[in-house]
């Protein structure tokens, strides 16, 4: 890369600098006095390649004073051909552009891609060499450059191995180093751990003190317990004398009374006052015996009533249901009996009406009239024929009248049979028949039948028709009459044919008209009524007869005449039953009374027996207590009873006075069991009381002590415990272990990198040294021709060799400064060569590097630079015009700085 033109509008103190269109040569000398801007120009060159750093207008020292931005541009010819123009400007932020032909790229503040292989820092340190730098390459930069040169072979993506290793060692060192220098995390942890162990000791001490405090507290509590027990014993002794002894005496008195009372179980059941009880029992026995006698005498009247209830009465009562049933049925058939009477009367009336009606139209008594023909008579047909007959008769009468008028001979009518007598006989027969049926008297029935037969015969006789009259002569009237008669005869025949079996009285027949039909129809109705009543009567009579038969049967059972009037028999049975029932009821009541009296007697007897037994038992028990004498027993029992009562009362008094009596008794019992004394003299009592007071004071002290130790235990228990601190220590230990491994890992990794780097360096370093040797030979005119590198040597890593030297000499004083500077310059040139070997060669900026050299060295140096310029552009800054001239004579162009060029 060659810089062919530079234009600076403003950069630091430089303004409006333009090297012009004439391309800058391979060696450019910037000539100017100190502070003229040579370093500023060198910085601009660097900025042109790498951008503004710092990238802030405010912080960048090359921002011009006053108005305007730092800005400038340069034209670069690249080693591989091609030309680019770079422009940089620092506004509030840096800007830049890169033009190549017609192409312009926004560069911003980026490094030019052709210098990427050389970091800015390396360029500044290696490619820009000042007089001070020449002799003062600090170790860090040197090592860095060495690493980059040797270890990275110019690769731009890797950091120097030594840097990486250094970082790892630094990180490891931050964790732990063998020496105590600097901050070390692990040593800090250990310090923390030590502090914790100190705390653990405190905690262990607290634990020890806690145990001691607990021991002391337990001891205080033990002593307290003992003191309280002792005080309690003392108090008990006092209480024994002052409080327990009266109780004990009372208890003894109670015991005495109880002994006197003895085992009162055998007094259980004995009355409180046995003598009075005996008297009461005697009185009771007597009273009960009287009650027995009274009960017995009261049973006589009831017994008489029982006896009055005879067997006959019992039989009656035994058949009471039958009798009452009969009485009920007899009473039940009373309406039937009345109805029978009424029906008989109605039948009688019907017979009379039949007789009467029959007598009007029939020739025979009603009793002789056959019932069937009358019943079967079609009355309506009869009426029709009768109407015909009536008309025929009228016609005949008219004919007869006509004839009569012609002849006028009347025809007498023959007399009929006595129909009235027949009706009377029929009525009588019916009455007799009914009476016989009701009364059951056969003679009445027979007489009735006979009367009915006679009446019927008479009625039949009366009903016989009369013989036809002889036919008349042949006159018209006669013929008319004959015809009328014939018609009448036919009509009559028609009527008679209907009445053929009915004994209609001839007269009635002769004059038969509608009345005849009405009469016969009336007879039919009466007959039907009568038949209905007869049927009703027969049913009623059968019911009544059945009841009467039962009544007779019952009457016969009780010795009465069964043939007597059923009504009378019924009344008799009812009366007798009523009487028997009354006797039965009286006997029942008497039985119940007798039963009650017997129970009363039994109870009275039982009570009497019990009273007697109780009395005897009491006497017996009293006799036991009285050595066979009940009276003495009464005294003994009374005395024991009184003792028991007094013992109970004394006990109750004691319990009232001492609610804690059980406790007192237990204490008395314990005291007695322990054989403790129950009597103390006053002096002993006073001494014990004083002991109690003393023990109370001691107890108070012990209580305070125990409480204080409790508080101390509480405080100590709240203290951090050793195991808690141990946990914190363990945590630190664990962290330390982890960090130790981490530290060792970093450290070992650093060693690994160093080892690898060394191996690599050993493989590649000789070539760098060879290049440096060639440059040195150039600079020294062949006096020294090799630089040796050996980092293991104590006298320095670099040594010089030359044709005139038998052994390598250290590149260090006492070598002359000029030689040292020559050697370093040679190394720098070699490094530069290696840094961009195979890539874009970057410009080399040298600032007064040759100024301290003698004439010969300077001349060789300028020759060497001219040789270097064959492969890379060299910028030489100087304030010495003769130096500029000398370089100009070697083809350099001189830029005078500070002159406005």
């Amino acid at each position, binding site marked *: 890369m060659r810089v062919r033109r530079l234009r600076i509008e403003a950069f630091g103190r430089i303004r409006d600098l333009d090297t012009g269109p004439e391309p800058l040569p391979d060696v450019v000398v910037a000539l100017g006095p100190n502070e003229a801007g040579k370093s500023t120009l060198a910085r601009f060159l660097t900025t042109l390649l790498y951008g503004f750093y710092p990238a802030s207008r405010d912080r960048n020292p090359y921002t011009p004073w006053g108005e305007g931005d730092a800005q400038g541009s340069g034209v670069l010819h690249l080693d591989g051909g091609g030309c680019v123009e770079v422009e940089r400007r620092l506004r509030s932020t840096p800007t830049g552009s890169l033009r190549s032909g017609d192409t312009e790229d926004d560069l911003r503040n980026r490094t030019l891609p052709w210098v990427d292989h050389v970091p800015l820092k390396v360029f500044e340190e290696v490619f820009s060499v000042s007089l001070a730098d020449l002799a003062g390459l600090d170790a860090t930069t040197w090592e860095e450059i060495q690493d980059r040169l040797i270890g*990275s072979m110019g690769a731009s*993506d*890797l*950091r120097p*191995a030594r840097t990486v290793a250094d970082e790892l060692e630094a990180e490891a060192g931050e964790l732990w180093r063998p020496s105590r220098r600097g901050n070390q995390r692990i040593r800090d942890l250990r310090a923390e751990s030590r502090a914790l162990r100190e705390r653990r000791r405190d905690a262990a001490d607290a634990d020890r003190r806690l145990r001691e405090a607990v021991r002391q507290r337990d001891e205080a509590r033990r002593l307290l317990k003992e003191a309280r027990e002792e005080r309690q014993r003392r108090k008990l002794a006092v209480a024994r004398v002052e409080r327990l002894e009266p109780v004990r005496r009372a208890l003894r008195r109670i015991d005495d009374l109880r002994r006197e009372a003895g085992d009162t179980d055998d007094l259980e059941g004995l009355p409180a006052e046995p003598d009075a009880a005996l008297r009461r029992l005697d009185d009771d026995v007597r009273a009960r015996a009287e009650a027995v006698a009274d009960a017995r005498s009261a049973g006589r009247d009831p017994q008489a009533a029982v006896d009055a209830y005879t067997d006959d009465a019992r039989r009656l009562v035994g058949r009471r249901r039958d009798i009452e049933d009969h009485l009920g049925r007899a009473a039940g058939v009373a309406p039937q009996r009345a109805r029978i009477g009424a029906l008989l009367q109605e039948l009688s009336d019907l017979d009379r009406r039949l007789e009467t009606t029959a007598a009007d139209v029939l020739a025979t008594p009603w009793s002789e009239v056959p019932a069937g023909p009358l019943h079967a008579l079609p009355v309506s047909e009869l009426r029709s024929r009768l109407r015909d007959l009536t008309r025929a008769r009228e016609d005949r009468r008219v004919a007869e009248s006509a004839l009569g008028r012609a002849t006028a001979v009347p025809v007498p009518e023959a007399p009929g049979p006595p129909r009235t007598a027949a009706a009377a006989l029929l009525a009588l027969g019916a009455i007799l028949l009914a009476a016989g049926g009701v009364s059951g008297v056969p003679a009445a029935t027979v007489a009735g039948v006979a009367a009915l037969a006679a009446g019927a015969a008479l009625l039949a006789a009366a009903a016989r028709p009369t013989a036809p009259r002889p036919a008349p002569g042949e006159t018209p009237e006669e013929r008319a009459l004959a015809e009328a008669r014939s018609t009448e005869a036919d009509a009559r025949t028609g009527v008679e044919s209907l009445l053929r079996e009915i004994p209609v009285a001839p007269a009635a027949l002769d004059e038969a008209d509608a009345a005849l039909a009405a009469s016969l129809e009336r007879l039919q109705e009466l007959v039907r009524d009568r038949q209905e009543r007869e049927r009703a009567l027969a049913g009623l009579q059968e019911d009544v007869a059945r009841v009467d038969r039962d009544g007779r049967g019952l009457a016969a059972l009780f010795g009465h005449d069964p043939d007597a009037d059923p009504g009378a028999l019924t009344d008799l049975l009812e009366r007798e039953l009523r009487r028997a029932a009354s006797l039965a009821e009286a006997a029942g009541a008497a039985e119940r009374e007798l039963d009650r009296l017997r129970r009363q007697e039994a109870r009275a007897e039982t009570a009497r027996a019990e009273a007697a037994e109780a009395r005897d038992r009491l006497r017996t028990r009293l006799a036991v207590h009285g050595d066979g004498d009940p009276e003495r027993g009464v005294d003994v029992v009374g005395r024991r009873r009184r003792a028991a009562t007094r013992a109970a009362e004394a006990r109750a008094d004691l319990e009232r006075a001492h609610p804690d009596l059980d406790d007192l008794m237990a204490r008395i019992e314990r005291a007695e069991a322990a054989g403790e004394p129950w009597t103390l003299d006053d002096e002993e009592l006073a001494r014990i009381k004083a002991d109690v007071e003393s023990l109370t004071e001691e107890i108070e002290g012990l209580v305070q002590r125990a409480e204080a130790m409790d508080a101390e235990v509480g405080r100590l228990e709240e203290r951090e415990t050793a195991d*808690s601190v*141990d946990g914190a220590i363990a945590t630190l230990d664990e962290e330390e272990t982890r960090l130790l*491994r981490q530290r060792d890992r970093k450290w070992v990794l650093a060693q690994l990198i160093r080892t690898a*780097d060394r191996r690599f360096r050993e493989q590649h370093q000789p070539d760098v040294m060879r290049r440096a040797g060639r440059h040195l030979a150039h600079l020294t005119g062949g006096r020294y021709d090799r630089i040796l590198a050996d980092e293991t040597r104590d006298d320095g890593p670099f040594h010089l060799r030359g044709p005139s030297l038998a052994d390598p000499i250290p590149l260090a004083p006492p070598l002359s400064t000029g030689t040292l500077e020559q050697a370093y310059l040679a190394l720098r040139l070699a490094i530069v060569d290696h840094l961009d070997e195979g890539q874009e060669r970057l410009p080399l900026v040298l600032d007064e590097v040759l100024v301290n050299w003698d004439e010969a060295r300077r001349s060789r140096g300028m020759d060497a630079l001219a040789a270097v310029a064959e492969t890379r552009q060299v910028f030489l800054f100087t304030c010495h015009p003769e130096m500029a001239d000398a370089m100009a004579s070697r083809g350099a162009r001189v830029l005078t700085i500070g002159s406005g060029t």
Partner: protein
Amino acid sequence: MRFVHVADVHLDTSFAGRSEAVRQRLREASRDAFRRAVDLAVREDAHALLVAGDLFDGDRLSFQTERFLLEQAGRLQAHGVTLVYATGNHDPGGTDAGPRRLPWPANVRLAADGTPARIAVQDRTGTPVGYVSAIGHATAREREDLSRRLPSPPRTPGGLPEVALLHTQVHSSQGAEAHHAYAPSDLSWLVRAGYDYWALGHVHIHQILSQDPPVVYAGCLQGRTHTDQGARGAALVDLSNRSAPLITFRELAPVRWETVRVGDLSEADSLDLLERRVSAAWRNAREEDPGAAGTEWMVRVVLDGPSPLWRELRAEEDRNVLAAELTAALGALDVVVHADRVHPVVPVDVHRGRVDALGACLSLLDELAAGRARLGALDAADLAGAPTDDPAAVDAYVRRLLDDVDGEVVARFLGLDGGER
């Protein structure tokens, strides 16, 4: 004879935890576990409670724990249960300190001085139901095989069961390497010794080393650190039938320690996503082993590998925030997050084979892992946490340290990591 066999109770263990509240709960958990063991003995009508050493964690209990222990012994006495206690390396009984200092009630039989004791165990009526031969550690560093000191039990046909009680490290037991080889014993000898049951302590993992006769580690009663993962409790043993002993493990520890390892975090680019990843891993683990009802969990979340959140995970404050959120999300008693090996997301394989210092580092790591190289000039004195001065041990330690650091190395060379802790 029925008995409850516990071991390694470690009362008053110095639990490490993020907060005093958690540490306090863990200390209580040890006591709760022992109380549960006593409850179990009472509830099951056991004739004895056997403690196979390390009842105490140190030579001295806190006053409160002493009081607790004596109360529990008193409870056993009230129910007629004999407590046989053989001391271990944590609570040796060779001095007047430790267990011998306590005013034990009469039902407690202590084997504490390296002398065998044969103790008749009785039922509630005073009838012997079996014998326990116990021997305790007299010192904290007992190197002798104490099992050899126990006398051979009488071999009486139809006799009572004979139980041996001992705190020992059986060579072949699982997890023995995690414990000091105190009172080491040999399984074949134990099996031949003639006892009906060996009640062992010291190794914290419950295991039955032999079925006939049963040689049993009860395991620690309550886990103490994340090395004590899984259910912890006691063995409930019934030797009523000597030829068919019944051994049941009963989980008694109220707190369990569990670790959730979550790798491949490159997709989890937020703490929320990360929390979900961890929660899912926890749920999966609990589906396989849900633990007893009411179990409280001490969870260690180990995050490993590349993560976009490497910077946050390196920051202790952020880790603590994540831990607090996970504590709530997992319903745990406490969660700690370990992210020492988390590094930025870098494509390590891309950088392998490059000709520079990074390439050289990666090659060297491969050689170290393969044992083809070792880091020279490393001295135990340079290492803060080297286990011993033994070069082989140091070398192994270094190899463990360098396990899976490729990503971090690349990240550091690329300038993505460094100086953040």
